[in-house]
């Protein structure tokens, strides 16, 4: 019992916090995949840009909260411009074109950030300080805030896609864009706004996690691998699956650290993914026909 309360439960909380933040990042990735059929390799860089733009806004306004609104909006604009200028001409081409393009965009964004902000690490002060006694340890209030805000955002996104007309239009575009176009909906606009929304979501995750993980040009590369695992595990294109998979990966990583050395934890995460894919080849909630 002491082990459960003193060791396992704190690890579980760490895993939940990490999983929730990972879910935010992976959700944008999975929506873009479902809609455009493109694995967006630049998604990690949009996450990174969110943090850097956030720092720039904080520098001007001295407010993390203003940055939390402004940075996703600004990166969302970058996302919209990227979709219109670069991705749109490739929609009728095989998926490989989009893959290569986004890979190139990732390099461009990363090096642009390095040129503008330099390669040095930057730290963002958490807007909420202090800590709360929790399960025998002192838990930072900002992490609890992160868990709460991530869960609220995930719920809001779910409500958007299931309860609003705009959300239903996006889901319809995911199912059959041509049919939607035939029904008179401006599908190109839907694509642009969805890509912008996905970029904004990545930026929001980047800034929310900045006080925990610090900020540097490579930060997106390192997170995107885990986000890809989440998307594959959850089922390509499945939003609910991504959220579940993000929590599974976050908690598994946190708990396995107790018993395995770090390299083996990384191997175990991949083993978990392989195991799930053997039992459920489409991931937790993957749809028939996606990547088949």
């Amino acid at each position, binding site marked *: 019992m002491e082990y459960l309360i*003193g*060791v396992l439960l*704190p*690890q579980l909380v*760490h*895993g939940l916090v*990490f999983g929730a933040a990972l879910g935010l990042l992976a959700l944008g990735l999975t929506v873009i995949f479902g809609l455009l059929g493109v694995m967006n390799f630049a998604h990690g860089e949009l996450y990174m840009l969110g943090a850097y733009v956030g720092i720039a806004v904080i520098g001007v306004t001295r407010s993390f909260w203003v940055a939390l609104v402004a940075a996703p909006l600004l990166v969302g604009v970058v996302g919209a411009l990227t979709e219109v200028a670069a991705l749109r001409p490739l929609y009728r081409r095989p998926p490989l074109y989009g893959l290569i393009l986004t890979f190139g965009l990732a390099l461009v964004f990363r090096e642009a950030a*390095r040129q503008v902000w330099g*390669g*040095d*690490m*930057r*730290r963002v002060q*958490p807007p909420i300080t202090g*800590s709360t006694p929790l399960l025998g*340890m*002192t*838990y*930072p209030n*900002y*992490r609890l805030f992160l868990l709460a805000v991530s869960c609220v955002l995930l719920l809001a996104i779910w409500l958007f896609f299931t309860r609003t007309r705009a959300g239903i239009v996006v889901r319809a575009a995911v199912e059959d864009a041509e049919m939607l176009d035939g029904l008179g909906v401006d599908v190109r606009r839907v694509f642009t706004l969805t890509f912008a929304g996905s970029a904004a979501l990545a930026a929001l995750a980047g800034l929310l996690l900045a*006080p*925990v*993980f*610090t900020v*540097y*040009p*490579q930060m997106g590369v*390192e*997170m995107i691998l885990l986000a890809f695992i989440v998307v594959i595990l959850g089922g390509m294109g499945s939003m609910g699956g991504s959220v579940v998979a993000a929590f599974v990966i976050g908690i598994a*990583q*946190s708990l396995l*650290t*107790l018993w395995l*050395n*770090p*390299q083996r*934890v*990384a191997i175990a995460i991949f083993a978990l993914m392989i195991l799930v894919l053997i039992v459920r080849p489409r991931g937790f909630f993957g749809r028939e026909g996606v990547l088949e």
Partner: protein
Amino acid sequence: MTKLLSLVTVALLVAGWAASPATAQQKVVKIGDLGSKVGVFEGYGKYQTMAMQLAVEELNARGGVLGHRIEMISEDDDTKPAPAVRKAEKLILQDDVKLLVGAVSSGATMAVMDVTRKHKVIHWNSVSCAEFMRTTKFHRYYFSNQPDSRMQANGLAKYILDRMGKRVYIFYTDYAMGQSDGRQFKTALEKLGGEVVGVAGAPLDTKDFSPWFGAINQANPDVLFLAFAGTDSLRLMTQLHSFGMTKKYKLAGIDCFLLQQDLPAIAEPMEGFVQLAHFSPYNPDRHMQAFNARFKKRFGVDANIMAGAYDGVMFWAAAAEKAKSFDADRLVPLLEGMCLDDTHIGRQCIRKEDHQVVMDMHLYRVQKGKNVPIATVSGQDTIGEPLVGKDPVAGFTWEIKKKN
């Protein structure tokens, strides 16, 4: 008319060629700068390049080496052994560098040592600190002025036991450098009667260190010894601070934990952090101040521990001038035992047996974002006996010896 135009054109081209820098200047000798230029150790690689650049510019201003202008070629090794080997071979075989400085990460440096041994090129290490480089991996073309794990542990363990506490938890980055630092520190501390109450390794580039914090808190040490570097250190300190652990435990760590430039951004979590290092721009030592003034004048920023790369170029140039040759086999005997007075910290001498520079170091404590010296440790007290060809970790175990 056409003929005249052709003649004028040819004459102009010849005149332009004759006046071009390539022909107007002397012969060129190339040196290689290999290290992490992006990623977790980016800062170290960047300052290594700057330190070497300063040395190259100073030497070229004096006429170069043996009448040759020095040209530096920089390569990024991606902080990994395999690319480091590829880039080292490119520098040696394609660019024909006569000196190779690098890499930054210990794993990459050890891999590059095989290349420099094979191609007989002078190899200078000024930041990697794994204990194998001057022992089992040692070769005659390898030299170092970076205090390795054993030197740092020897100097730091005693201070920690005397001034900070006897119960220590070792938390390290789980690859060559961190493992080496952890091993050597555990060995040194236990030898002096200290108690290691726990050890844990986190992989390079760990995002969230909090899963390890429970174990540290359970062990309840007096001191937390941290063997991390680069972005890992910054993240770790940010997270330790948010969990209240920077106030709860006394903190100590390795010399390359964070560069001086990183400290102001993380001043509060780092307050009181103790480390052993050879340089700080806040050390009043006149040699350090003189070097730092030149560095700052050239680059507009303070120097840091990567200044050791400057000395690597200077030692090589001095040996080449003395040998009147760039041939590595003629330079090695001259470098062995060589002393230079005007390095970034004053006098440095290369020990003949293992090609390690013997240097006095300082214990530094971080105060308001500055590495402030608190004590001097003699180089002779830290360097330890030469162990060329011997296993420096023979009999070592990570096992925790419980004390009653």
